[in-house]
């Protein structure tokens, strides 16, 4: 396939994943905004975390002075100048899909095109408090529809492998950021302090990756900060954990190597990260510093993206 096609497919997958994650983040932030106020600026801080997790803080504060629920939600859902807004993501995904029509199956194209058309009909003014949950649900369901169409209909060749790389690099980045923004809430010392606020925060982190219920199935106990960190970083069964993402990334890269017959720097980088996660121990991670670990992970994840782009001539 053309290098440009691989590039477009990879980014298409990233945008669809990003849109879904954004909807999840907004939902969590909004949920907290509904809680009884607990000291001045409590809800502001939550939106601040949301913006930081989404990498949208700088862009937001360039436009707005204050943090208000309405402004943040509008910025994250509709703002065309925000390249990570749901609207921007759905547009970019559709645009890439259109540019690579020949690589997509009909089901995949129609799900992207349909989502873009429908979202175009949703106006910010119409998004009231009661409408918001429905819209966020809709975003997540459209993302699921696309992913379902892809998994069900696409040929298991380079089209699939590059799409997988896009999805899981984005997902890993997203989980890592959510953890990193709130890492201080997960430090073991806090377990002693406990308290209502922290429980809300732990719940928020888990909700941001759709894990607040599954946690209890895996750990059969109340939220414990270091268990949460372990769950989202090292647990193999949790589909949004860093470990899970890298298992998928390694598989996709292996399959590309099998298809094309060559291995590159990206294979080594991915392999090293996968090994670190497979052999990881949460205590050691805390010892050397959770924040440092996550920062390092995010940076290596980005580097992997660049290496993939270079090895496969995305921008020849």
């Amino acid at each position: 396939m053309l290098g440009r096609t691989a590039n477009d497919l990879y980014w298409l997958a990233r945008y669809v994943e990003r849109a879904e994650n954004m909807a999840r983040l907004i939902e969590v932030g909004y949920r907290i905004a509904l809680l009884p106020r607990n000291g001045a600026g409590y809800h502001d801080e939550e939106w601040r975390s949301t913006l930081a997790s989404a990498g949208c803080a700088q862009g937001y504060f360039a436009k707005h002075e204050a943090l208000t629920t309405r402004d943040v939600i509008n910025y994250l859902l509709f703002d065309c100048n925000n390249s990570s807004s749901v609207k921007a993501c759905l547009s970019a995904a559709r645009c890439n899909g259109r540019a690579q029509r020949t690589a997509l199956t009909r089901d995949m194209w129609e799900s992207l095109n349909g989502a873009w058309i429908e979202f175009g009909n949703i106006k910010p003014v119409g998004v009231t408090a009661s409408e918001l949950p429905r819209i966020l649900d809709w975003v997540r369901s459209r993302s699921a529809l696309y992913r379902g169409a892809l998994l069900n209909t696409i040929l298991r060749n380079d089209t699939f492998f590059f799409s997988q790389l896009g999805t899981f690099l984005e997902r890993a980045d997203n989980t890592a950021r959510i953890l990193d923004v709130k890492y201080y809430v997960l430090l073991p010392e806090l377990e002693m302090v406990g308290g209502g606020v922290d429980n809300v925060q732990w719940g928020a982190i888990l909700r941001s990756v759709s894990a607040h219920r599954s946690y209890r199935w895996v750990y059969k106990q109340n939220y414990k900060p270091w268990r949460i960190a372990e769950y989202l970083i090292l647990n193999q069964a949790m589909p949004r954990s860093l470990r899970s993402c890298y298992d998928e990334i390694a598989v996709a890269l292996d399959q590309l190597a099998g298809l094309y017959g060559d291995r590159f720097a990206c294979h080594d980088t991915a392999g090293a990260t996968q090994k670190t996660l497979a052999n990881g121990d949460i205590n050691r991670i805390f010892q050397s510093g959770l924040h440092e670990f996550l920062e390092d992970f995010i940076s290596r994840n980005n580097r992997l993206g660049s290496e993939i782009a270079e090895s496969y001539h995305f921008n020849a």
Partner: protein
Amino acid sequence: MTAAFDEMNGMGDGVRMPYQAIAEWLGTQKLDDLKQKLVEAETLFRRTGITFAVYGSQEAAERLIPFDIIPRILSAHEWRRLTGGIEQRVRALNAFMYDIYHRQEIIKAGRIPEELVIANSAFVPEMIGAEPPLGIYSHIIGIDIVRTSENDFFVLEDNTRTPSGVSYMIENRETMMHMFPDLFAKNRVAPVENYPDHLLKTLESVAPKGLDREPTIALLTPGQYNSAYFEHSFLADQMGVELVEGHDLVVLDGALHMKTTQGPRQVDVLYRRIDDDFLDPLVFRPDSVLGVPGLFDLYRAGRVTIVNAPGAGIADDKAIYSYIPEIIKFYTGNAPILQNVPTYNCRNKDDLGYVLDNLAKLVVKEVHGSGGYGMLVGPAASRDEIAAFRAKLEAQPENYIGQPTLALSTCPTLVETGVAPRHLDLRPFVLYGDRVRLASGGLTRVALKPGSLVVNSSQGGGTKDTWVLQD
């Protein structure tokens, strides 16, 4: 003004044979149901993405070319009469192109003025002496045909450069079969979905000689913001060939390559949907970013085949059009089977005089125009419009041709108030490689405004499914 010939009702003396079944069916349909079907069709088109962004438009939504659900129908016999004339024309046009880029016998024989060819902006001097595979310049041609009576068909125009619309022909059929399967059970309609197959065979047949493997074909598009983009991606998809843009291509080691995930891969045949001017910044427009530097040299060296060949536009120039009967006679030795519309070349004083005297009765077109822009439809124009056009004509007579207004046939079309006759034309698509291959029917373009003769989509025209009935 005499009534136009109607494809379904003739001159009002009963429903014509090919339309019997459809007329019966229409009789049983309620207007609201038909309108509902139309909405369904448009939803299908939007979902599939057969839309385009209009150049310079402020609208955010993409546009659809309006589709009419009532098919235009030709009998097997009518179609056979057309195909003979179409094939003759396609061969003659290509023989003409070969001649004028080589020995120019037709000019030496005095049958065409030299300056009409040599000074023509569509003539590409860089093509002189080139030897395209099989001697073919225009492999894909769209011939615009109109009808004025039961037996009178005229060729309005030949499109030998980058004719478009074939994806609409195919998608219209898909949509009709999806919405009205029972109609296809009752009428034996020749299939059109084999066009991409024929196109692929045509492209393969003109691969550079001496290739020791299957030829690699690519379709060059200007990109997704081009109004015909859907068709580019559709055809590439249907043929299973790579859809490329200029920057995906590079000339390396004396061959054309595309930039793939595994490095450069050679391309042997390039079906290009960009104009000559943009093909190669080293030879043509230097500011073009749509083409490939060095591509033209490769082509001259026979290392890659470009379809349609550069310089094929000389045959679809409106000034040359009036000489086509002459061209057909010269290269085939036979009279043309399909007629041209009588044409007055305003570069000739006598013709100019006639046109100026009869502006209110004629259609006057720019020689280098397209899309229905810049033309005057005399009978429909106001006095002011005619006066303004007269001034343009007198200033640059060589830029215009005049033709009598033809009473184009009409066909029942679904409009706001019900089913009403609207003027239409027909664009069969012809493929010319190792053989001439013709899609059954082609694209029917219909003017949607009552009485309007302008069928171009850029001016609000729509399309219909075209049926050729099998015997």
